[in-house]
C-alpha cells in the first residue's frame, strides 16, 4: 500500500518550478510586474514601454515597468498552487496505487476498471519487448517509416488483448450464474455442425455431422491439417467458438451436461479448463501465484482458500518453486506448466489444451506430455488436445479425432491417424540435384568452389550474462541449402540475426564485402532474414500493398510475382484472390511465403529463414519446403534454422548442428 518512489516527486518539483516561472512570465508580458499599489516601490529593473491593444482587447496593455518587488510578488502568489503540485507529487510517491487497483480488481463496484488498470500495468513490459522486436524486424525489412514500427506493435497489442480476454473468459471472469457440471459425460456432440456463417467468411470453412462422445479419464488428441479447424473444434467445447469468435453452431454440443450453445465459457469455468495456444499472451496477473489463483479470485473466493488451492495445484504439478516468481521470469516449458496449473485450479472435469508442444524443446515436451497423461489416467480428467506433433502422444492417447475435409473421424488408440507428420516427410519433388557425397566438412565445400559466397568468421553474440553464440565460423558456397539444427536455446536465432545485422566488423563477409560496413540497401542485397516472428514485418492492410512497398527496394522487382511463385502459382493473376486480403488473414504458411517474397525483393545473395516450420502441419510444411527450394533459385544460397530433424533431412544439402552457442562438427547428409 505504501512505498517510496522518488520519480513522481521529482517530476512534481520540476512542474511546480515551471509553474512559478510561467506566472512570472505572464506578469512581465501582461503588465503586472510593476509594484502594485500599497506594496511600496522597489528598485526598477527594466522600464519597458506600455503597449495598449485594440478592439475587444482594449483593456489589455502589454509590458510596462518591471520591478524586483513586482517579480517577487508574482513568484510568491504562485507558491500556493506550486505547493499543491508538490503535495500531489508526494502523495504519488508514497502511495502504491497499483496495489489498490489489484485489490479492487477482484471485487467491488469498480472491478472492471480496476482489472483494466492491472492489465495496463502488466502490459508495459510486454510493450517494451514488442518495441524491441519490431525495431529489429523493421531494420531487417529495411523500412524506416513510422507505420512500419507502430502498426506491428499495435497488432501485437491487440493480439495480446484478445488472448487475454479469451483466457479470462474461460476462467470465469464476469460470470453471471453458476452452472454445475455432470462428471459422467464430459463431451457429447450430437449431429453438431460448426461454421462462421454470421461473420464474413472468405474461406467457407465448416465442419458437419459431428458425433463424438468422450469419457472421463481419457486423453483424446485432435489431429488435422493447418486450417482444418483443430482449434475451432477444441473451442466448440470450450465455448469460445460460439461465444467469443462469432462462430455458429448447429445441432447439439453438451459439455458436462451444459448446453454449449446457450452457456458462455465464463459460466462453465468451474468444470472446464483451457490451456491456450500461446500461454504467455493469456497471463492476466503479475505473479505465478496470482495467475494460478485467478479463476478463484474472480469468483471472490477468500484469499486464504485461494492460497491453499494454489499451493495444492502447484504441488501436484511439482512447480512449487515457481509460485513466488514473476510471470515474465518463466521459461517456455515453465510457462506451459503454470498455464496448466491455472486451468486445473477449479478441478475441471474437462481439460482442453491447444497445441501445447509448439514452442517446447524435447525435455519440456516430455514433461508436459507426462503431466497431461497423469491428469487423464490418474486424476480422471477428460483431456482433449489439439496438436499436430502427434508422435509424443502415441503412447498416452486413448483416442484420436481426425479432421478430414468437413468431417471428423473418431479413431481408437490402436488405429492412429494414417498421415502422421512425424513419420517420413515426403521430399519435395523439385529439390535441385545436389551431390550429397561431396563435402564432408566445411573444408570440402570450400574445395568445390574456390571463393565461398559468404563466410562467417569468429562470430560471437553476448546476451548478458551469457555468450549465446560462441566463436562460430563457417563458409557458405553458392547453391547451398543449409539446415541449421539444434534444440531450443542453442543460439540458432541469435546466430541468424547476427549474420543479418552484424555488430562487429569483419565477422560476416558476403561476396567479398563486410556486411557490417554496408548501408541499409546494400546490406539487404547481401543478406536477407525471415525472422521467427515473421508477422512483425507486415504493416499494411492488403497483401498487394505489402508487395508494392517491397517493390520500392529494388527497381524492377515484382514481389507479387515472387509471392505467387513461392506458393506454386504460375502467374500473379492466379494468386489475385490472395492479393486483396488483409495480410494477417492469410494462413501461417501463406504469410511466411509473403514475408519470404518481401525479403527476396532486394535479391539477397544469402537468404536466412528462422524456424520456417514452427506451428505448421504437413501440408503447410510441404508448401514451405517447396518455397525454400524455389527461394534458393532466387538467391544464391539459403540457410534455415529448425529444430525439426525430419524437415531438415528431407530438404537440406548440408546440415550444421548447434549446441550451447557453438557449432558442432558439420554432419554429413545421408540420403
Amino acid at each position, binding site marked *: 500500500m505504501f512505498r517510496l518512489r522518488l520519480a513522481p516527486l521529482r517530476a512534481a518539483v520540476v512542474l511546480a518550478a515551471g509553474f512559478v516561472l510561467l506566472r512570472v512570465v505572464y506578469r512581465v508580458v501582461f503588465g503586472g510586474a510593476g509594484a502594485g499599489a500599497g506594496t511600496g516601490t522597489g528598485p526598477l529593473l527594466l522600464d519597458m514601454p506600455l503597449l495598449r491593444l485594440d478592439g475587444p482587447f482594449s*483593456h489589455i496593455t502589454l509590458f510596462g515597468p518591471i520591478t524586483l518587488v513586482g517579480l517577487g510578488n*508574482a513568484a510568491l502568489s504562485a507558491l500556493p498552487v506550486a505547493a499543491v503540485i508538490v503535495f500531489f507529487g508526494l502523495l504519488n510517491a508514497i502511495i502504491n496505487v497499483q496495489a489498490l487497483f489489484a485489490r479492487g480488481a477482484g471485487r467491488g463496484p469498480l472491478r472492471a476498471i480496476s482489472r483494466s488498470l492491472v492489465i495496463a500495468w502488466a502490459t508495459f513490459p510486454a510493450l517494451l519487448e514488442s518495441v524491441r522486436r519490431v525495431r529489429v524486424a523493421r531494420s531487417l525489412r529495411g523500412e524506416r517509416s513510422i507505420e512500419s514500427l507502430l502498426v506491428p506493435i499495435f497488432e501485437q497489442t491487440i493480439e495480446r488483448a484478445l488472448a487475454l480476454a479469451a483466457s479470462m473468459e474461460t476462467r470465469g471472469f464476469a460470470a453471471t450464474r453458476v452452472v454445475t457440471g455432470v462428471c459422467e459425460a464430459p463431451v457429447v456432440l450430437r449431429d453438431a455442425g460448426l461454421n462462421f456463417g454470421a461473420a464474413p467468411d472468405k474461406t467457407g470453412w465448416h465442419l458437419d455431422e459431428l458425433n463424438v462422445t468422450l469419457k472421463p479419464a481419457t486423453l483424446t488428441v485432435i489431429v488435422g491439417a493447418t486450417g482444418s479447424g483443430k482449434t475451432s473444434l477444441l473451442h466448440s467445447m470450450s465455448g469460445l467458438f460460439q461465444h467469443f469468435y462469432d462462430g455458429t453452431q448447429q445441432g447439439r454440443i453438451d459439455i458436462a451436461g451444459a448446453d454449449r450453445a446457450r452457456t458462455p465459457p465464463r459460466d462453465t469455468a468451474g468444470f472446464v479448463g483451457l490451456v491456450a495456444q500461446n500461454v504467455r499472451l493469456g497471463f492476466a496477473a503479475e505473479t505465478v501465484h496470482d495467475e494460478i489463483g485467478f479463476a478463484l479470485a474472480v469468483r471472490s473466493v477468500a484469499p486464504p482458500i485461494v492460497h491453499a488451492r494454489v499451493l495444492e495445484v502447484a504441488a501436484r504439478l511439482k512447480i512449487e518453486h515457481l509460485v513466488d516468481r514473476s510471470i515474465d521470469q518463466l521459461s517456455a516449458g515453465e510457462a506451459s506448466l503454470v498455464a496448466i496449473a491455472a486451468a486445473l485450479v477449479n478441478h475441471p472435469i474437462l481439460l482442453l489444451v491447444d497445441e501445447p508442444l509448439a514452442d517446447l524443446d524435447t525435455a519440456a515436451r516430455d514433461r508436459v506430455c507426462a503431466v497431461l497423461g497423469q491428469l487423464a489416467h490418474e486424476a480422471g480428467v477428460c483431456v482433449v488436445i489439439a496438436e499436430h506433433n502427434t508422435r509424443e502422444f502415441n503412447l498416452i492417447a486413448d483416442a484420436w479425432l481426425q479432421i478430414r475435409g468437413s468431417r471428423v473421424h473418431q479413431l481408437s488408440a490402436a488405429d492412429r491417424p494414417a498421415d502422421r507428420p512425424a513419420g517420413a516427410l515426403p521430399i519435395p519433388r523439385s529439390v535441385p540435384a545436389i551431390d550429397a557425397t561431396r563435402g564432408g566438412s566445411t573444408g570440402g565445400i570450400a574445395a568445390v568452389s574456390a571463393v565461398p559466397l559468404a563466410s562467417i568468421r569468429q562470430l560471437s553474440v553476448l546476451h548478458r550474462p551469457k555468450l549465446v553464440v560462441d566463436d562460430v565460423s563457417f563458409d557458405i558456397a553458392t547453391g547451398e541449402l543449409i539446415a541449421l539444427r539444434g534444440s531450443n536455446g542453442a543460439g540458432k536465432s541469435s546466430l541468424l540475426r547476427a549474420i543479418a545485422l552484424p555488430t562487429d566488423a569483419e565477422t560476416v563477409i558476403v561476396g567479398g564485402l563486410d556486411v557490417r560496413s554496408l548501408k541499409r540497401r546494400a546490406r539487404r542485397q547481401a543478406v536477407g532474414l525471415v525472422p521467427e516472428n515473421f508477422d512483425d514485418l507486415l504493416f499494411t492492410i492488403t497483401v498487394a500493398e505489402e508487395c508494392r512497398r517491397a517493390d520500392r527496394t529494388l527497381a524492377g522487382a515484382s514481389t507479387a510475382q515472387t509471392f505467387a511463385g513461392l506458393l506454386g502459382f504460375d502467374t500473379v493473376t492466379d494468386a489475385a484472390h490472395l492479393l486483396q486480403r488483409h495480410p494477417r488473414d492469410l494462413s501461417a504458411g501463406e504469410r511466411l511465403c509473403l514475408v519470404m517474397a518481401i525479403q527476396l525483393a532486394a535479391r539477397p545473395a544469402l537468404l536466412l529463414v528462422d524456424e520456417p516450420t514452427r506451428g505448421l502441419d504437413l501440408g503447410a510444411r510441404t508448401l514451405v519446403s517447396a518455397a525454400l527450394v524455389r527461394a534458393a533459385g532466387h538467391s544464391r544460397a539459403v540457410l534455415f534454422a529448425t529444430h525439426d530433424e525430419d524437415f531438415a533431412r528431407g530438404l537440406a544439402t548440408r546440415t550444421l548442428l548447434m549446441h550451447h552457442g557453438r557449432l558442432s562438427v558439420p554432419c554429413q547428409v545421408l540420403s
Partner: protein
Amino acid sequence: MSEISTAAPGNSSDAPADRRARPSRRTDRARPRRSIRWTSWILGGGSLLAVAAFAWPFFVGAVPADAQVAVPIVAFALIPALIVALALTLDREMYTAKTVALLGVLSAVGAAVRIAGAGVGGVEAVFVLLILAGRVYGARFGFLLGLLTIAVSSLLWGGFGPWTPFQMFACGWVGAGAGLLPRWQNATRQNSSGQRIRATREILLLAAYGVVASYLFGLVMNLWFWPFAVGSGTDISYTAGADPGQNLASFALYSLVTSTLTWDTVRAITTVVGIALVGPAVLAALRRARLSPRR
C-alpha cells in the same frame, strides 16, 4: 470428482431454471445500441455538469458575493466526483472479458504513447489512439479509454496533480466525441473501389475531428486553469466583477498565447499526420478484433 460443484464458496446457489430460459445477455458482442437507456442520461447529465465545472470562471458572477470564494473549490471537487460517478455507471457495462482486456491493453498503449511523446518535445500523439478506438468501439469505451490513459500515464510518469481529473475528463470527451461521429451504414453494397472511397472519407472525417478536438481540448483545459495560471494583477487576469465580455477577451488572449498557437497547433498537426499514417491499419486491427480470428 464430485467435490467440483461444491468446491468454491460462491457455488452455493444453483442456477434456477427460469433464468436459464431467458436469452443470454450478449454484451461481449457489444454493438452500439440505439435505444437510449438511463445510463445515457447519467452520462449526458454528468458531462453537462462537468462542462459547468470547467467553465467556473464564467459562473462566478452569477452567484451571491458571499459564495463566490467557494466556486473554484466546488468546481475542483465536482470533477473528481463526476469521474467516480461516471466510472461507476460505466463499470457494469464494461464488465466483460473482451472489453476489460481491450481497455487495459489500449490504455497501456495510450500511456506509453503519451510518456514517449513527453520525451520528444511534447508531441502529443495520444489523441490518435483515442479517436481511432472511440470510433470503432463507441463513445462509452472511448470515454473510459481517455480516463484510463491519463490515469495510467500520470501515475507512472508522475505528472499527477490537481489538473489530472480535468485532463481525464477532457480526454474522455475526445474519445467519446469520436464515437459519436456519424457513420455511413452501407446503404448500398459497394464494390472494392466504393469501399476505398468510404475508407478515405472516414480518415478525412477523423482527421478533421482531430483538429477540432485538439483546439477544443486546449481551450477547455485553459479555461478552468486560467485564473490560477495567471494569478491576479495582470491585464489578462480573471476579474470576478468585470463584465463577461472583458473576461472573455482576456481569456481569448490568454489562451492564444498559452496554447492555441503552440501546443494545440502541434497537437492538431500530430493528430492529423498520425491518423493519416496509421489510421487505416489501426482501424482494421481494431475492427478485426471483433471478428473471428484465424483458425
